């Protein structure tokens, strides 16, 4: 595999792993040390792992800025209307009124686009598909993952195979491991 191909795959892999294995990756990052990459003559899974190590700083930034699903238990609904968020930054220089609400709506739209665009809420359908195709072990999963553009990682296999209601975008990943 060419170096460029490996990096291209890495980009895809990083996004997916950010969603699905974030907590695990953060845990691993503490143990990683920078080292020279040897992208030749290695299994693709290993190439990706090494590339992620090499790219640690960039990846760390990505992880830290990624939206997180915040699950809340049943509680009484307390809603109020606030003017606080409409306090505008009346910039005499730009003449623009940018409210915090505007910013949050933009952030919300980004989150939504990411969530839908990355297909991160489709884990259950992946599990069904794996079951139909008779994926019974990690080796079979790797082939299945390549065909279906899924993360090629042991953790990805565990999450998809055993499930952990991973719609929390990373918060409960350890539950499925």
């Amino acid at each position, binding site marked *: 595999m060419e170096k460029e191909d490996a990096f291209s795959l890495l980009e895809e892999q990083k996004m997916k792993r950010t969603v699905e294995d974030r907590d695990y990756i953060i845990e691993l990052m503490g143990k990683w040390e920078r080292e020279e990459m040897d992208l030749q003559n290695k299994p693709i899974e290993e190439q990706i792992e090494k590339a992620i190590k090499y790219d640690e700083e960039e990846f760390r930034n990505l992880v830290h800025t990624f*939206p997180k699903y915040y699950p*809340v238990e049943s*509680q009484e609904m*307390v809603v109020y209307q606030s003017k606080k968020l409409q306090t505008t930054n009346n910039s005499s220089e730009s003449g623009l009124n940018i409210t915090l609400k505007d910013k949050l709506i933009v952030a919300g739209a980004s989150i939504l686009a990411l969530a839908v665009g990355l297909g991160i809420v489709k*884990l259950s359908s992946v599990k069904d598909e794996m079951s139909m195709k008779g994926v019974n072990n990690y080796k079979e999963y790797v082939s299945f993952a390549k065909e279906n553009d899924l993360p090629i990682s042991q953790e990805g296999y565990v999450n998809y195979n055993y499930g952990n209601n991973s719609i929390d975008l990373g918060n409960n990943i350890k539950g499925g491991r």
Partner: protein
Amino acid sequence: MDDIIVLNNREFLILNKINLNGYNFLYVIATDGSNEFTLLNEYEENGKKMVKSVMDPELIDEILLKIKEENY
């Protein structure tokens, strides 16, 4: 005026309210810049309005797609 919902003593801005199959859902985002968001299911219990996060992956998928359809 902005609609704010308080969850675990934190403020979340209500970005969308949608009705899906007769149930009300809220798409909310934290106002503290933490990039945290959740989808809430609104329901009644003992005469009180309650909310809890949707945890079913397929339902989340369905809600997000509907919000996206309505917004874009």
